[in-house]
């Protein structure tokens, strides 16, 4: 079968690569690893076979089919690819900060697959990141779930095509500062934030009805109905109400978290994840009962007023209350060692290995709606895997190889000095440096509050 494919490929030449918009799928047999499946316990001296991008077999004494490379991982640890539920790596634009609602804006439009941060994330074992719109608006743009298939210049190759749509919401100081204080429009306060969301959804309900009425009338014979105005912004809110989009909401304070839970319940929305959620520990039972959980920092706070009341036990408390909890980076730097961030939940909260690892694998996968495909080592799931030289929750661990869909994209032994994909012909040697600003949530908004930025931290 395979031979015929290759023959056809050779025969059709170019047209083959054209016709198949498919991303690369690899096959590999990893032998004798300590396999941290996350969902099915830890398996000693176990082999994992990935074929055509899918985990075919987890067991012992597996042999590689012909042509499939074998990697000896004796003494090493194999875990599922790390998933970062909050990142801005690989985006040319982060904030369309010009309106309190920009639901029509899509991060998929501005993905930049050549950003070096993607490779650095791979070097930290991260195979999937949630490239989010910023937090300047109450209802921001739609996010992109990226698979880190480093090496392509085509954005479509790194956008995870089978991931559901998600959208950014933001509560609290950011939207009130940008729009209220910066532009003198709603929202100026937390009450305004709620009003913007409720008004938006109510308008969306009317929009949906206008189109439903038109479509019903237009199909009648001799209809004189004319189409209403098209509005992608309201259509996206309709899609949220119809359960087609998962909300990921930037939030800090317990009162505003609880507010959004109530708004969501009023509008029958259940696909809701809280981001940052520093005061989530105060409303953990409510988050557990009504939402898809919270994605939090391990220990990062006090960068502005609304983030003072925080604790490193946040993740553990949320987890103990049954809320789906993940640890995220929101940073091109932290994304390189999310396994350390997860390990902090053992120091602060005594999480088990599986619980801690779940916070950077299966739990963010559930929050992104992709847990049936990735997030654990199980037969039938996609071959996103990382080999560590020691236990990934150890302080001393170093990632060795990272696979996406069975294709190796990072190997510490083949790590070149210069991994750039895009090189300018007119710049001698570009500055290549880590984006050290802590959080890009507020990128592209600077012009909106140049004055206030001196008074308030921009996170």
């Amino acid at each position, binding site marked *: 079968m395979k031979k015929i494919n290759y023959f056809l490929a050779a025969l059709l030449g*170019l047209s083959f690569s*054209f016709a198949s918009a498919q991303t690369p799928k690899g096959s590999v047999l990893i032998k004798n690893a300590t396999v941290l499946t996350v969902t099915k316990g830890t398996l000693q001296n176990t082999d994992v076979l990935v074929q055509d991008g899918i985990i075919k077999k987890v067991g012992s004494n597996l042999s590689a089919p012909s042509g499939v490379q074998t990697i000896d991982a004796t003494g090493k640890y194999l875990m599922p690819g790390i998933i970062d539920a909050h990142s801005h790596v690989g985006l*040319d*634009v982060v*904030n*369309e*900060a*010009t*309106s*309190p609602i*920009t639901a*029509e*804006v*899509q*991060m998929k*439009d*501005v993905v*930049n697959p050549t950003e070096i941060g993607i490779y650095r994330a791979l070097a930290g074992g991260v195979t999937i990141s949630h490239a989010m*719109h910023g937090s300047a608006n109450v209802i921001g*743009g739609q996010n992109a779930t990226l698979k880190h298939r480093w090496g392509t*210049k*085509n*954005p479509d190759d790194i956008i995870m095509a089978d991931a559901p749509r998600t959208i950014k919401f933001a509560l609290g100081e950011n939207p009130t500062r940008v*729009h209220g204080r910066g*532009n003198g*429009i709603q929202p100026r306060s937390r009450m305004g934030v709620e009003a913007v969301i409720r008004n938006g959804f109510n308008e969306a309900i009317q929009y949906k009805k206008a189109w439903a009425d038109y479509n019903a009338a237009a199909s009648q014979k001799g209809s*004189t109905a*004319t*189409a209403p*105005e*098209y*509005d*992608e*912004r309201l259509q996206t809110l309709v899609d949220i109400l119809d359960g087609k989009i998962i909300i990921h909401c930037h939030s800090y304070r317990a009162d505003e978290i609880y507010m959004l839970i109530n708004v969501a319940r009023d509008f029958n929305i259940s696909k809701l994840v809280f981001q940052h959620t520093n005061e989530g520990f105060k409303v953990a039972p409510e988050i557990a009962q009504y939402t898809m959980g919270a994605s939090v920092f391990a220990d990062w706070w006090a960068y502005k007023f609304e983030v003072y009341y925080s604790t490193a036990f946040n993740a553990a408390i949320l987890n103990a209350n049954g809320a789906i909890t993940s640890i995220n980076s929101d940073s091109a730097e932290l994304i390189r060692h999310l396994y350390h961030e997860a390990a902090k939940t053992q120091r602060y909260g005594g999480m088990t290995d599986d619980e801690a690892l779940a916070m950077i694998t299966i739990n963010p996968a559930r929050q992104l709606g992709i847990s049936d495909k990735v997030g654990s080592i199980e037969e039938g799931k996609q071959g996103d895997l990382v080999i560590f030289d020691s236990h990934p929750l150890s302080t001393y661990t170093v990632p060795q190889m990272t696979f996406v869909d069975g294709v190796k994209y990072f190997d510490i032994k083949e790590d070149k*000095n*210069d991994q*750039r994909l895009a*090189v*300018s*012909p*007119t*710049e*001698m*040697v570009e500055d290549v440096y880590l984006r050290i600003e802590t959080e890009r949530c507020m990128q*592209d908004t600077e*012009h*909106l509050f140049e004055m206030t930025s001196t008074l308030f931290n921009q996170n």
Partner: protein
Amino acid sequence: MKRTLFKASVICMLLGGSILSTKGFAQSDPTGKKRVTDTYAITNATVFTAPGKAGVKSTVLIKDGIIMGVGSNLSIPAEARQIAGDSLFIYPGFIDGASNAGITKPKDPERPENFVSSNPPDEIAGITPWRSAVDQFAMDSKVEDLRKSGFTLIQVVPEGGMIAGKSAVMILGNEASANLIKENTALAASFRGSRGMYPGTAAGVMAKFRDVYKNAELTKTNSDKFASTPGVKRPAINDTYAGMKDVVSKTTPVMFSASSELEIRRVLKLQKELGFNLILTDLENYEGVINEIKASGAGVLIKAEVPDDKAIKAQKEDAAADVKAQYARVKEAYDKSIAQAGKLEAAGIPFAFTTAGVKTGDIGKSLKTMIDNGLSETAALAALTTNPAAMMGLSREAGTIEKGKMANLVLTTDSLFSADSQIKHVIADGYIFDYETKAKKKASEAGNATGAVKIAGNWDYTTESPAGSGSGIVAIQKEGNDFGGTITYDDPSGSGKATAPIKDVKLDGNSLSFAFEVNAQGMSIVVEISGKVEGNSMEGIMAVGQFGSFPFEATLSPSLTAKN
């Protein structure tokens, strides 16, 4: 309103222009600007009638802005002014696929009192599809520079935001004439957001573009229904819709500015979703998306420019190994970049050029670089003539030298892309524009009257000898009251460059001379260079012992200073 008036006047000029002007001229011409004749015959020139055609000795007869004939046995009317073309080469007049020459950005409209930045009026947000480049165009020195470079027809693109307005084709003839050839040729679009209001970023622009386009489609559907069916509600026709109507009807293409591969992909994504006819413009970096461009069927306008080579020239010999590896990648990127046009040709994409944002004086040099790196001369000429003519729907009227076409010609002193070729005349709309040609190029920098001749710095030089051309760098620096320095030259013993110190540097007025020694096959030869410095250039001769003297030209590189 202003625009309507303008349009009316343009139409008046178009309709009545010839009658009025003949009348005017028939009486008298107090300005003294009237031509003696509008009939010209360029006799016995080497004529290249179209890209790919060999040059044939013929005579070109033009009258009243029209080519009346091309051939060797034309009967030349008595009123024709004859131009001896024996030493001249004639090409079809160049056509600029997209230009901002002569364009003045319209004043930003005042913000209304109830202005809300999250929902600004279209006009303020840069969405002005109803605007026309015609209203923003006037002949100015930039336009004249383009004509001097051989361009006779230009498609001018309006200035503005994400949807700036409609482009128009202008002929660069006499400025007293109405030079509009075609209006509404394309809708200019870009990823340019509006600062401080919606849409502010490329992401916002893409979302807004979809909205504008889809609503224009819906309004069209509603309007059609309104026109055909009684009882249908009146559609709301706003300026934006009126400007977009031809675009959603697919009669006017969208000319989208996209310089990089990622931007090109973004435009192609919008085109795929919305289905408009597309011309990609401002392409600079497109090597990786040539297949995608071809599959889209879009028209292609690449920048008539190559990247500057400052980064390559600034590479240091004594760099560390890893830095050298990075240099190699910059060099690789540069080499790829200048070979792109050739790859477009190889892919069978009939592209043209845009001069928007391009230094007009460098266009010739850039084209030569593209030709040296894989672009055929035929394809280069097609990109200047027949391809843009086809893109603008002007193949009948322009692009080649044929009887009945517009009299747009470029007359050069040598075959077009040869090193010493200079443009001597440009004929646009039947008007002749004469340009000074120099025996040697290298114009002196004007106004160096103070007399202080500066020679310290790095001079890039070239020489011509029977053995071929040579090049290198002369680094001159002040040493007390004298000058000293080094010269690099092609090593006679093999490949690579050799370096030698220069001596006897003398500067007398603007006469500069110096010498250096070359060791070749055990023989020491003194090479003496002397010449005149004008501004940043030097012309002179290089005397190589008893082997003879050869032309020497050098340019002071402004970006580099002499090593200390």
